[in-house]
């Protein structure tokens, strides 16, 4: 396979992996939460933000990243973590609150840190952007050509931190790419009800940086633009902003009744599900069915092993709560 074919297969496999991951989260999350849905119960308590539908953003960007490139993600981090190569066993164990989790169960699903691949995320909207600028500068000042990527939602583009971080990145010519996953909702509030502009990409003008808009949740198109922006950063030309039109196939968090969605919206979005669409395109482009199936199978196996690992892993001792407040 050509390197481009390899990359496309990698993107496909990682979308499948991410989706399968969420597919296994779903029943696990609902364990102990029925008949009465109570977030506190079951093996995975707390809020759970799934990324179904947003996989193209993660793979399109991460296809261009190395281990030493830094990613900061959001409260909806699974697809990005998986595409960045976070240790999936430890990540799953973390989500289950187990000792073998990335943070020994201290962080949970909104706080996944894997320094081996320079991934982290935060649950406070837009607050990962400053750290990404800093990480980019740490690389630049040390003479490395590593870059940083900060993911955010379109809702986060109205938070002050967005403005400050993009301006600072531009002033410092930091090798960082800001990626807006525009799923058109911030919880229940639609983008058009809270955002003064139709396209966040135009906001790049305020920071004298390139602003890209990618429509249709298309992994290839995302990857193309991402390649450009990441090259630009790696070459020392400075930051960029990428806005990706994507879709949230699930509720904001699990248990969200989604009363704010127009009738039929989810069905329409599901018809545009990027994973079967991309599969069909790959086949049309000459990929072998068997290769896709084997990639799918591998992806699923990895996820299933991760869930087994997590489930079999033990809980931390209660006293471990006191560890690692300081390093």
């Amino acid at each position, binding site marked *: 396979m050509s390197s481009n074919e390899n990359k496309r297969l990698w993107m496909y496999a990682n979308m499948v992996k991410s989706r399968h991951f969420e597919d296994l989260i779903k029943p696990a999350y609902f364990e102990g939460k029925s008949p*009465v*849905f*109570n*977030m*506190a*119960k079951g093996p*995975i*308590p*707390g*809020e759970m933000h799934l990324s179904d539908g947003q996989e193209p953003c993660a793979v399109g960007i991460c296809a261009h990243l190395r281990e030493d490139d830094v990613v900061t993600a959001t409260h909806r981090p699974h697809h990005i973590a998986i595409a960045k190569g976070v240790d999936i066993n430890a990540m799953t164990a*973390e989500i289950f*609150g*187990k000792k073998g*989790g990335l943070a*020994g*169960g*201290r*962080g*949970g*699903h*909104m*706080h996944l840190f894997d320094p081996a691949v320079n991934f982290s995320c*935060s*649950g*406070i*909207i*837009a*607050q990962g952007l400053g750290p990404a600028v800093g990480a980019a500068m740490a690389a630049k000042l040390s003479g490395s050509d590593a870059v940083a990527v900060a993911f955010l939602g379109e*809702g*986060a583009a*109205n*938070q*002050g*931190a967005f403005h400050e971080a993009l301006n600072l990145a531009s002033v410092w010519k930091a090798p960082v790419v800001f990626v807006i996953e525009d799923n058109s909702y*911030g*919880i*229940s*509030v639609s983008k058009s*009800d*809270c*955002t003064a502009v139709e396209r966040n990409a135009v906001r790049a003008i305020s920071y004298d940086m390139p602003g890209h808009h990618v429509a249709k949740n298309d992994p290839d198109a995302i990857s193309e633009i991402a390649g450009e922006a990441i090259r630009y950063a790696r070459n020392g030309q400075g930051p960029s902003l990428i806005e990706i039109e994507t879709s949230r196939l699930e509720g904001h968090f699990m*248990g969200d009744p989604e*009363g*704010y969605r127009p009738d039929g919206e989810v069905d329409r979005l599901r018809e545009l599900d990027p994973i079967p669409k991309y599969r069909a395109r790959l086949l049309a482009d000459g990929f072998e069915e068997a290769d896709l199936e084997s990639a799918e199978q591998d992806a699923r196996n990895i996820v299933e092993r991760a869930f087994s690992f997590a489930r079999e892993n033990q*809980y*931390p001792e*209660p*006293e*471990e*709560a*006191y560890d690692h*407040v300081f390093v």
Partner: protein
Amino acid sequence: MSSSDKPISAPPAERRLTIAKAMSEAIGQEMERDSSIILLGEDIGRMGGVFGTTTGLFDQFGKDRVKDTPISETAFIGAAVGMAAGGMRPIVELMFVDFFGVCMDAIYNLAAKQSYFSGGKVSCPMVLMTSVGGGYGDAGQHSQCLYATFGHLPGMKVVMPSNAHDAKGLMLSAIRDDNPVIFMFHKALQGMGWLGTIAGSITDTPDDDYVVPIGKANIVREGRDVTLVGLGATVHHGLEAATRLADASIEAEVIDLRTIAPLDRQTIIQSVSKTGRLLVVDDDYLSFGVGAEVIASVCETGAGPLKCPPQRIAHPDIPIPFSPVLEHFVLPDAKKIEQAVLSMMKDEK
């Protein structure tokens, strides 16, 4: 499963409300009375508030008075300050108190100081309602309490109900107050099905207009042996512990602070003067917290004589851990209270 841990069952009486419903009801009734009230916040419109604080109000009052905002806490809380100066009475929701870090200036440097900086000429009648507390696995950025953080800074009143009755009455007081009031509501008491709710928070709640005064603590159980001071969720833990302690013939007096600032020191001191023993329980971080303030307030007066050193239970000085085995280990509960009281009873001077 402890008794406080039951899923909500159908309220027996018609007016048994959850705190969420009591808050919405108070706000709705007051919005009918007073057209200067406006609601601002994330998801408080069509969705009715992530924690049910504004259920039905968008439909009832429309989008001019119930306004979903961008995720721009600095701007919309700042806007509330400007509205309040301009004669309106904004009620703003900060979805989780944990997010104060993105907007505290608008709260403590603008809202809280507007009266002082204007020599009392410009008031700031706004209510900032915000959810607090953990216990349901939402981890370190969505489970904090920060009572003392807000209580420490002057110019704001800070209240937190432990039940629906008080929620309605405190909300009406808060809205009518011409000063900024931080209205904290505890997720473990809110009565959102999906969060689980301590049953004692669901109480008979009059349909009428009534207020619970700001600045007045409530003795929710009388007793002669030890004073348990709590607020929000820990009031219920205290009551549960008191029931168990009664079996051992220890009569605990349980005080529900209801207001964090201004603190009702008098009620506490009177109680401790009677019982001679003080245990403060809160689920905020321990150091520089509610427990310290209550203990110091008692000790500096020389109230007593105390029969044993005053004690406090709180969340330790660690970020709130995600894993339930860790989180429940560090959170205060009835059992820890019971044990603390038992050892205080032994530890006579």
